[in-house]
């Protein structure tokens, strides 16, 4: 999808304008044969400085928009860039093949792995085909089937997370979207192979977590991970969805926040300007991070892997315990 008015974010506009200018000059150079490379170099420097400037002060809401960027690489883009080759597997063996959840066999740096992940669509037709990346129960059951297959044959699992939320239509409710997510959480916690999670874009609530219980959880720099979409939070708290930017800040949904809160293990840096400006480079960085984690995890036994994963999630949450409470009381007294 090429840049166009409809897929450039507001804060990207100054950059886009500069780039349009640079393109114009380049075109003229080609057409008229006049060497304006010095001018171009200056403009490009200017653009890079501008980008650095803009991206150094992104708000959580800006990052939300980047995570949802219409040109952001999706799961299959990474599958193609990360794997030497791959073979998709389909179906939950129960009801259907959910196009919002893909999965299959991949060769990753010469190793056999199973991948699963939500898949968004690029244009309108594809977006509908992929149900906007919102998987139904059958998607989570398909993912579980594939993950169990990986466990059976001792292969690591890589899960790519990118979903606004699980589907909550009448059909999804009636086929047990809650049951499907709950079962995945339970089963994933006990699988005896390495599980690496890569949060690529939107880490939308239970829909994301439904394939998100891993030994290592990586998150791209401008991805978000949230218990509720900022719009939903704003609507509930302040009865005003327009206050989403405030909610995005209050909810602590950025990769940085997730790392600080201990729910992810590593932030994977994106190229200047975001993953969509250089998918290849993003994939290379991600690949390096996954490989490093995979090497570590592959030295562990199945039981150790399950125990490490359990303890990791067991420890999540923050609260005060009795001694701390006593201290507070003492201080207050």
């Amino acid at each position, binding site marked *: 999808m090429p840049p166009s008015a409809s897929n450039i974010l507001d804060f990207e506009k100054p950059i886009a304008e500069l780039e349009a200018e640079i393109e114009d000059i380049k075109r003229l150079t080609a057409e008229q044969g006049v060497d304006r490379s010095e001018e171009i170099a200056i403009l490009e420097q200017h653009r890079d400085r501008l980008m650095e400037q803009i991206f150094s002060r992104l708000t959580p809401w800006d990052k939300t928009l980047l995570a949802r960027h219409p040109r952001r690489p999706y799961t299959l883009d990474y599958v193609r860039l990360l794997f030497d080759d791959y073979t998709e597997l389909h179906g939950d063996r129960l009801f259907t093949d959910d196009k919002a959840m893909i999965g299959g066999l991949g060769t990753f740096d010469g190793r056999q792995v199973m991948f699963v992940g939500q898949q968004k669509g690029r244009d309108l037709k594809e977006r509908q085909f992929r149900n906007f990346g919102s998987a139904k129960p059958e998607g989570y059951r398909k993912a579980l089937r594939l993950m169990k297959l990986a466990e059976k044959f001792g292969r690591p699992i890589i899960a790519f997370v990118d979903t606004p*939320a*699980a589907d*909550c*239509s*009448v059909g*999804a*409710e*009636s*086929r*047990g*979207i*809650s*049951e499907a*997510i*709950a*079962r995945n*959480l*339970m*089963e994933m*916690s*006990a699988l005896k192979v390495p599980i690496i999670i890569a949060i690529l874009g939107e880490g939308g*609530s*239970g829909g994301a*977590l*439904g394939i*998100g*219980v891993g030994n290592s959880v990586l998150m791209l720099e401008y991805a978000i*991970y*949230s*218990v*509720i979409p900022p*719009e*939903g*939070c704003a*609507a*509930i*708290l302040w009865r005003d*969805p327009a206050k989403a930017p405030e909610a995005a800040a*209050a*909810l*602590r*949904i950025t990769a940085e*926040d*997730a790392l600080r*809160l201990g*729910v992810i293990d590593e932030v994977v840096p994106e190229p200047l300007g975001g993953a969509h400006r250089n998918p290849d480079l993003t994939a290379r960085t991600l690949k390096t991070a996954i490989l490093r984690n995979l090497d570590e995890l592959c030295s562990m036994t199945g039981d150790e892997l399950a125990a490490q*994963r*359990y303890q990791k*999630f*067991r420890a*999540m*949450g*923050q*609260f*005060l*315990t*009795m001694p701390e*409470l006593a201290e507070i009381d003492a201080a207050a007294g």
Partner: protein
Amino acid sequence: MARDDWFGLKSGKARKLARKSADAVPDGLWIKCPKCGEILFNKELEKNLRVCNKCGYHYKLGAMQRIAMTVDEDTFEEIATGLRPGNPLDFPDYEDKLEKDRKTTGLEEAIVVGTAAIGGRRVVIGAADFTFRGGSMGSVYGEKIVQAVEKALDERLPVVLFCCSGGARMQEGILSLMQMAKTSAAIARMSAEKLPYISVLVDPCTAGVHASFASLGDVMIAEPGALIGFAGARVAQQAGVINRPPNFQQAEFQLDNGMVDMVTPRKELRQTLIKILQFCCEDIGNAA
């Protein structure tokens, strides 16, 4: 459950808690049934386990009421106490809201867990309370569930949980979401040890709780008319869920769709639990 005092709690403190955590019990003598409009005598309603004797509407119950109604008299001992939510996100107004709910309910969080006996069999039991932050699951809620399960694992006891929740505790953000994984992982350990876990889904059981431990019972029971589903009412509204059948997200809808084993009226619940526990427990959890 033909007992005069279905509260079953002797200690003054427990009684006080039970009274406090009952949701929206008006102090007056009379109460109007929200379903059929019948005017009910409050004392009669209590005797009828807070079920409308005309239309069968099941009122919400507080956590301590639930437990009292279910366990053998005077057998409940709370565990996993002394935990209090922090404000890890520095979320606006969160501490004030917690303080208010602590005062009005007498609870330290939206869930109470402990050990008790049911029909003479020792169990771990827990009950969530809608009057505390809408029964939303935050770090303490999750931790209490896990500590309850750990108690069951240590002593090889069955677990019975009354699952009630408006969803995840928004004010604890992503940490709340993680409680879904944390509690479900604990249930996985129960399952691996072949220890029984019975979940009872009561009004309302939605979102993060429904999509985690609540849906993982070996046997799952729902109370009649309970709202049970993935998308909380407001989320579903935002998502514009269409073509809802009349009983959408009700206990009976879940039964039709194969998601719960049975819909059991409150007055039969204790006996049903006793039967199921008898099936699931060969040689575990027999109270001396």
